[in-house]
């Protein structure tokens, strides 16, 4: 099986955009073609990661529309929906299409248009992934985060401030990301004094509602070398699923999908947590950064908060996490987020991250759907 390379990446400005889903996808798709130096007619497979364009906008068939809009006909197209992990699932699908030999040039574009909906409406679309006995309680994904955060803080005697420091760190990183929704620093006191959303979590513990799109171009490594010397290789990738009903998990502070997909990606790449130089984690809520750090082996259970407290996860720390600003600062256009994680790692490994640049040869992305219901972990390495 030939190794799969990424030879181009792009993302639109994330935030409140006037454009609708089809326009956002085309913007990122065309930018990615240009970045990779690939003609649209060379695309054999085209995947669109998108959770809910039908529910948000009444627009379905987005993969067909994108292929037409960017001149990629008659490429095979498919929409990938895995809720918030649609982007990571798109990377997995695109990787499979190339690794299997079915495609020699695969474009992946993730996108979502959300901000025209009220917060309540958008929250309800996302919460529709829950089981009927959960949905009728009015539970939201932020509510799950509140309950999990309370359990974590009480069980592990972690200070509330450590969660606020996750938000503050990621906002600080986002200042240097021109595509981020919020290029604005937020200090710990501001997080702790912001309005309660799901006790004990407050407004700045949560990512915003966002419009945006991101894209990656994948091909066999032998083909990549025809286009560029600056590419990355997907050395490990795996996906896993946890219970649909969140409270049925044995331990509320363990995300089984993170653990399983991480172990699979490590095994495939021959790498371990100690080899990762930079990571993009799914910080839809601050508590999720802790749970993923522990599930991926960066910290022992109940101790991730200590690495945030001592600065290890800052840009100049031992393991920089969410150099892009994360979902927290960069924004979370559902289907785009996992792809945008890949864009950040691609830019870090190819030395294109400008003011966010860290010294890295191996990077990891973890994209979480639901409240840990579906998870994709991807390990990328700079071409040698």
């Amino acid at each position, binding site marked *: 099986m030939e190794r799969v390379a990424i030879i181009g990446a792009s993302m639109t400005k994330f935030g409140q955009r006037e454009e609708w889903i089809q326009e956002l996808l085309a913007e990122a798709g065309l930018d990615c073609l240009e970045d990779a130096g690939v003609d649209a007619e060379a695309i054999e497979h085209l995947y669109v990661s998108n959770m809910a364009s039908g529910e948000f906008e009444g627009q379905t068939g987005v993969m067909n529309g994108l292929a037409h809009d960017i001149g990629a006909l008659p490429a095979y197209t498919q929409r990938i929906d895995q809720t918030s992990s649609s982007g990571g699932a798109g990377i997995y699908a695109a990787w499979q299409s190339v690794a299997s030999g079915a495609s020699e040039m695969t474009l992946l574009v993730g996108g979502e248009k959300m901000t025209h909906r009220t917060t309540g409406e958008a929250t309800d679309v996302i919460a529709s992934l829950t*089981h009927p*006995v*959960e949905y009728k309680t009015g539970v939201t994904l932020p509510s799950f985060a509140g309950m999990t955060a309370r359990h974590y803080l009480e069980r592990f005697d972690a200070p509330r401030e450590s969660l606020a420091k996750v938000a503050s760190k990621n906002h600080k990183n986002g200042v240097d990301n021109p595509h981020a929704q919020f290029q604005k620093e937020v200090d710990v006191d501001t997080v702790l004094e912001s309005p309660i959303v799901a006790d*004990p979590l407050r407004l700045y513990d949560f990512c915003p509602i966002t419009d945006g799109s991101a894209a990656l171009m994948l091909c066999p490594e032998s083909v990549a070398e025809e286009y560029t010397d600056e590419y990355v290789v997907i050395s490990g990738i795996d996906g896993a699923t946890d219970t649909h009903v969140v409270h049925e998990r044995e331990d*509320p502070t363990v995300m089984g999908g993170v653990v399983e997909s991480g172990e699979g990606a490590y095994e495939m790449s021959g790498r371990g947590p100690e080899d990762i130089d930079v990571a993009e984690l799914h910080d839809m809520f601050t508590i999720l950064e802790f749970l993923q750090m522990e599930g991926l082996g960066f910290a022992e259970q109940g101790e991730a908060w200590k690495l945030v407290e001592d600065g290890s996860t800052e840009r100049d720390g031992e393991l920089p996490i969410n150099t892009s600003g994360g979902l927290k600062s960069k924004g979370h256009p559902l289907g785009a987020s996992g792809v945008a994680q890949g864009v950040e790692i691609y830019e870090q490994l190819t030395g294109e991250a400008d003011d966010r640049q860290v010294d890295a040869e191996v990077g990891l992305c973890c994209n979480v759907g639901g409240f840990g219901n579906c998870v994709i972990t991807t390990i990328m390495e700079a071409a040698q």
Partner: protein
Amino acid sequence: MTMEATRYDDGTISYPGHPRSRDGAEPVGTIDLSEHTAEVVTWTTSTATPPGVREPNHLAIVEFDVSEDVEDEDAETSVRALVQLTDGDVETGDEVEPVYTEELREPGAGIREPESQDWDGYRFEPV
């Protein structure tokens, strides 16, 4: 109205029930959780609620001790559920009991098709 957890052939219990247990075992019986009290494992008060949901919305994950309903000594003796609380005046570890409610949220106000599921159930309050 009941609040039925399902017992499976492998000794596991779940609420809600599923056609098979997590490891593929068949259902062998049910336990009515509405006849039990439970202990609060964790809780939250949500102030940003979706259409048709009370605001604020008090929620908890609670754990039921159902050892008296289980005969097999190797079987699970507890089961958890996500529930609404009557108010936010609770602490982790509190014992709570169910109070029947006709509508936990307004059917049809949100995205879920009203006919696709039931909407009544139990809120829990401190004993």
